[in-house]
């Protein structure tokens, strides 16, 4: 019997991509995706449930669908996406409720996969070059997004302790680059002006979006409890990344950096929030060997991810933006999913 998967954040970039990847697998029988907003990608057999981000109806959904795996992709790691209050609600309160429901007595849930970020390691001058999964932070968290991710990971740790029969996998991702996703990095590199901090050229690490999706898929369809870093091999100086992408560095002063960055951020010139700005000073490397030892293979190194991104950027410069074609329409989707007129294979 295949897996029955419940996915959070189906309407987000990652939720949609992961659902698409899981749909292709024979060993996944059912995919139920939750979100407040409608999916952005075309889905074949994923069921979409509109639910608020505090997951108040989760217990009922779990009971009704008898899912055995929960994939929690809905942790917001890019603080430019929304206001702090909402981010806190989603990351901390959302995770807390999700895990509370997953840990209710008699739930069929046996596996939880959470997509977190390397942001939890922080970024400070006292850091080692490489963080492995156990390396502690050098400084206490200074930004809301880091705070909220650490709180969410704390709930997950407690959950794993209280529910030894549930395999909990925590994935921490490095800076994501990709042709489809928007992050402060992709935005800066696309605009052609990449903020930097004068006198600093940090070593940065990247992971390609396709590797992110397959890493979540890998954890979902296997038994691999534990914490794992997911990042491309190798580190690159920021100046070299910018050069590879054809972007010009826009140096910010090394003192009062945040003060200088704020108006630029407002103008849309430097989309870097404080936690990413710190990366431009000291960089961060997260050691990806533990996940590799488990059998996961990457398609791209840090350099490969940058290269792929740069190539795509040149293409879209030449032919114009390759926009998304698909728009979700509830009636149409429900027609495809449920109408007897649609010829379905017995699998779905």
């Amino acid at each position, binding site marked *: 019997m295949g897996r029955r998967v419940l996915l959070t954040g189906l309407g987000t970039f990652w939720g949609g991509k992961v659902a698409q990847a899981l749909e292709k697998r024979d060993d996944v029988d059912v995919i139920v995706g939750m979100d407040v907003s409608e999916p952005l990608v075309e889905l074949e057999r994923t069921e979409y449930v509109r639910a608020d981000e505090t997951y108040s109806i989760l217990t009922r959904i779990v009971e009704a669908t008898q899912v055995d795996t929960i994939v929690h992709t809905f942790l917001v790691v890019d603080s430019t996406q929304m206001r702090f209050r909402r981010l806190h609600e989603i990351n901390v309160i959302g995770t807390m409720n999700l895990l509370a429901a997953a840990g209710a007595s008699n739930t069929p849930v046996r596996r939880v996969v959470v997509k977190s970020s390397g942001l939890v390691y922080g970024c400070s*001058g*006292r850091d080692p070059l490489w963080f492995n999964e156990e390396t502690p932070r050098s400084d206490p968290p200074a930004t809301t997004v880091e705070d909220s991710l650490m709180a969410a990971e704390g709930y997950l740790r407690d959950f794993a302790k209280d529910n030894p029969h549930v395999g909990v996998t925590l994935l921490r991702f490095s800076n994501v680059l990709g042709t489809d996703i928007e992050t402060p990095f992709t935005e800066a590199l696309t605009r052609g002006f990449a903020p930097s901090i004068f*006198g600093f050229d940090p*070593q940065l690490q990247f992971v390609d979006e396709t590797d992110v999706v397959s890493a979540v898929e890998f954890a979902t369809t296997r038994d691999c409890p534990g914490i794992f870093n997911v990042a491309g091999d190798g580190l690159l100086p920021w100046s*070299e990344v910018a*050069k590879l992408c054809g972007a010009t560095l826009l140096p910010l002063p090394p003192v009062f950096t945040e003060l200088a960055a704020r108006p630029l951020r407002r103008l849309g010139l430097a989309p870097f929030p404080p936690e990413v700005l710190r990366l431009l000073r000291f960089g961060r*490397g997260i050691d990806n060997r533990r996940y590799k030892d488990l059998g996961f293979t990457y398609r791209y190194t840090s*350099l*490969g991810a940058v290269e792929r991104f740069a190539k795509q950027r040149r293409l879209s410069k030449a032919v114009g933006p390759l926009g998304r074609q698909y728009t979700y329409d509830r009636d149409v989707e429900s027609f495809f999913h449920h109408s007897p007129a649609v010829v379905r294979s017995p699998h779905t």
Partner: protein
Amino acid sequence: MEAGIVEESTAASRLGAGTIVPLKRPEPQPGAPSAERLTDIDEWGRSESIRSLARKGFQFFYDKYFRVEWEGLDKIPTEGGALLVANHAGAVPMDAPVIMHGIEQELSRPVYGLADHFFRQLPVVGTLWSRAGGVPAHPENAYRLLREQKQLALVFPEGTKGPSKLFTQRYRLRRFGRGGFVEIAMRAGVPVVPIAVIGTEETMPILIRLNSLAKVTGLPYFPITVNWLLMGPVLGTALSLPAKIKLRVLDPVHFPVPPDQERYSKSRVMDEAENIRISIQEALYDMLAHRGNPWLG
């Protein structure tokens, strides 16, 4: 048109209706096909081309200015990891560049200089320092360099207590930290190679230290040096006095303990650290006893 449909339907029936045909995923290609670096900056931030440029610039100082002389350079391993440990002196210490330059020229293998994370936090200086082979002294960094990458790493266990001492205290070694360097060498399973350096104390002697100014500027120490009195604050900071620098490499110390242990006996670590300190101290006294004029050697 017709033929196409027939073909398609037979293909479908062969596979059985509704079978999900697994698409063959492209083989993972580490590095991606066309990916090529633009620089030779390694993961530590060191660039061999910048380093060799720096060596070219320093060659004059090494040969003509400090007239560096080595003793026992053959004791430094030509392959495998090793932790080089030396005494540290002079307000702007010249021992690090001299040791790194000498070994890289003679043995043609890179030396990574471990230093306080203070450098990393300085704009421009921190970047140049890292390009030239500087690495923040963190146990994890040292372990990775020594054990996994089998490199040479240089460390000054006295830390800032060495270069900040007054000229009246010259050649008297400070405490060797908390023995962390021994513990790292044990964990990494590499020998410690002690190096005694003389002449560096005379390159930039400290007369007094202004602690209040150190606090205001955020520097680890704020010295008034002989160089300042002779050449003023700018040139006096940049230029060392031309003392003759001599180095003696002592016998490598191997630790008969298994690597990769979680903990090592603290008393053992402290004893080994103290023995290494004493051996460098004795070598210094011996070298100084044979030295004539500090400027001519």
